[in-house]
């Protein structure tokens, strides 16, 4: 089963290496990992999608927590959460295909962010499933390039900032 973990960590050199090295060394099956700034200066926020049974995921969370630079780890899989991914899709777009691609993009509330002579670049934000379906529909046109960010997640509601939302 897929689990979503959110980890907060100190924004210091080598911390990403510590995390990825841990996953590799313990042979954890990580599907995606995204990292960026959080609302607190000096603290990065990482969203990790991991495949495995509850025991494996619990191990991942506990081993992550053991890293000195990691300040908090929460499994949000069972919590109501906003889950999003962003993808940039460059599609081959000959004369006849353009309007059709743009229509598809509209249906998915995706944006065309670049128009080239022979291609269109579409930006889509949504759940992985939504991104998957658009990709599936665009595939027949020919996808030239694809960049997906991987999942980011945030627990819904609450008003006390991260600490309140991320109570395990």
């Amino acid at each position, binding site marked *: 089963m897929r689990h979503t973990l959110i980890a907060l*960590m*100190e924004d210091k*050199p*080598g911390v990403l*290496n*510590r995390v990825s*090295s*841990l996953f590799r*060394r313990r042979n954890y099956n990580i599907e995606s990992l995204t990292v960026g700034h959080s609302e607190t200066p000096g603290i990065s926020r990482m969203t990790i999608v991991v495949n495995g049974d509850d*025991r494996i995921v*619990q*191990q991942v969370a*506990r*081993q992550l*927590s*053991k*890293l*000195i*630079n*990691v*300040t908090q780890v929460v499994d949000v899989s069972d919590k109501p959460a906003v889950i999003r991914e962003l993808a940039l899709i460059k599609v081959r777009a000959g004369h006849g295909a353009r309007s059709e691609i743009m229509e598809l993009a509209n249906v998915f509330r995706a944006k065309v962010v670049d128009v080239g002579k022979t291609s269109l670049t579409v930006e889509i934000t949504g759940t992985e499933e939504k991104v998957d379906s658009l990709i599936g529909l665009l595939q027949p046109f020919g996808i030239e390039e694809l960049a997906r960010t991987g999942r980011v997640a945030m627990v819904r509601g609450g008003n006390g900032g991260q600490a309140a939302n991320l109570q395990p």
Partner: protein
Amino acid sequence: MRLTGAQAVWESLVREGVTTVFGISGGAVIHLYHALPDYPIHHVLMRHEQAAAHAADGYARATGRVGVCMATSGPGATNLVTGLATAYMDSSPVVAITGQVPTPIIGTDAFQEVDITGITLPITKHNYLVTDIEELPTVIKEAFYIARTGRPGPVLVDIAKDVQAAAIEYVYPDTVNLPGYRLPQEDISSPIQRAAQMLNEAQRPLIIAGHGVILAGAEDDLLALVEKANVPVATTLLGIGAIPETHPLCLGMAGMHGEAYTNQALSEADLIIALGSRFDDRLTGPPSQFVRQARLIHVDVDPAEIDKNVAVNLAVVGDLKDVLPALVPLVEEKDHTAWLARIQEWRNESAQRDILAQETDELLPQYVVRQIWHATQGNVIVVSDVGQNQMWEAQYFIHHRRRGLISSGGLGTMGFALPAAIGVQMALPHEQVWVTVGDGGFQMNIQELATVVQEKLPLKIAILNNGYLGMVRQWQQLFFEGRYSGTPLLGPDFARVAEAYGIAGLTVREKSQVVPAIAQALATDGPFLIDFRIVQEENVYPMVAPGAPVHHMIRRPVPANDVLKEDRT
């Protein structure tokens, strides 16, 4: 106070209570060594950085204090790796300080540059690269704090050469600020109550005492629990010494080469309480087949150990020094007469099969170990190496004292014993320290005999010399058609090697010479080496075959005239 980076390191070490450092100098630590003579720290110059790490580890295991080792950049640092991995696997508090090439040329593949923080990432509890002198005192403070608290472990501090040479207005912090480093602090009164209830209800309870009991200094608390509830105790290899092996409730070591009666007790217990043990595969065999009949309670200071190797019914995450005193009052006094009697029966049977109960003129390693125990009455610290010699030591030396056995358990590092013993003897100059080692492992760090002489350490060294990498040879004999590939081992005349270093040595070829040789070692003030030429193809029995559950043991083949019945298993 204005100090250079190098002075700041030594000043910080002094404030951490460090009196001894094991190391080797080099270009990237030359500033550190230049400043060293001004500080009240004894530097033990080792002959290999691996040995420096083992010595610091041995020092830490013997005392519970942080052991410190030091090496230069590049090969000096990489030579530490095996020693740090050894300390990491066995949760030993070590701080390693390495020099790094100057900050401006880091990343350029400079002479003797290596990414030692990258290399040691998975084998240290934490590590640091210091490129800013302002961070140096804080980093040293944190390194010692992390190394010794919680589940102890090694921490490496890599210091760029220009940082050592720079100057700072030195202030040593009083406290650490580590928001991501939390020691267990949850309220565990409810799992402790549950644990007591489970123990009170159990008919055939058994405790597995691991290294964590010793690391926590909870030996007295363990004894209080054991004696109140009359629970038998099996130990892991590193748990030896957690309870005196002379205690009637101590069953000795369990696992792959544990006593058959101990493993039998494990497999018939209805409740197993593991204290500071991580269910290592050498203890459990295949986790899926490990004691399926028993309920399991796991007490550990490291939450990541819970359910890692074996799923348990109840977990108590906390320091044994807190958990056990809280548990004891809740536990009912019991006698468990039937259960203990049953274990005693198995024990008697094992005793009859003991090879020392058989008459022989052969020079058996088990006899050597038992005679060392006999001559010293166990009032010594034994540092054992890895392989058959380690198992014979564990089986035949009766450890009644705390921290009386020091050995590389998790990593199983051959070559550990001699340098680790140097660390032990440096820490405890008034104790008698014995090294038990095979001819293979001894040759892996034999150069440290020079350090023994240099520091005038009265180590007693017993080589159980069978001319083989014996444990592998045993596996080849039992499971690989007797094909001795890569295991026959040429060795030097160890007594003469010792003599060349200035150490008295003897070669023992006959059983009758064993006792006089040990007596001579004991009568000698300085170091002494005995090369025991033991029976070459003696095996370690009993043995759990790889992949088999722990109670399926290969027992010593029964002689034809023996009346014992065939294996139960």
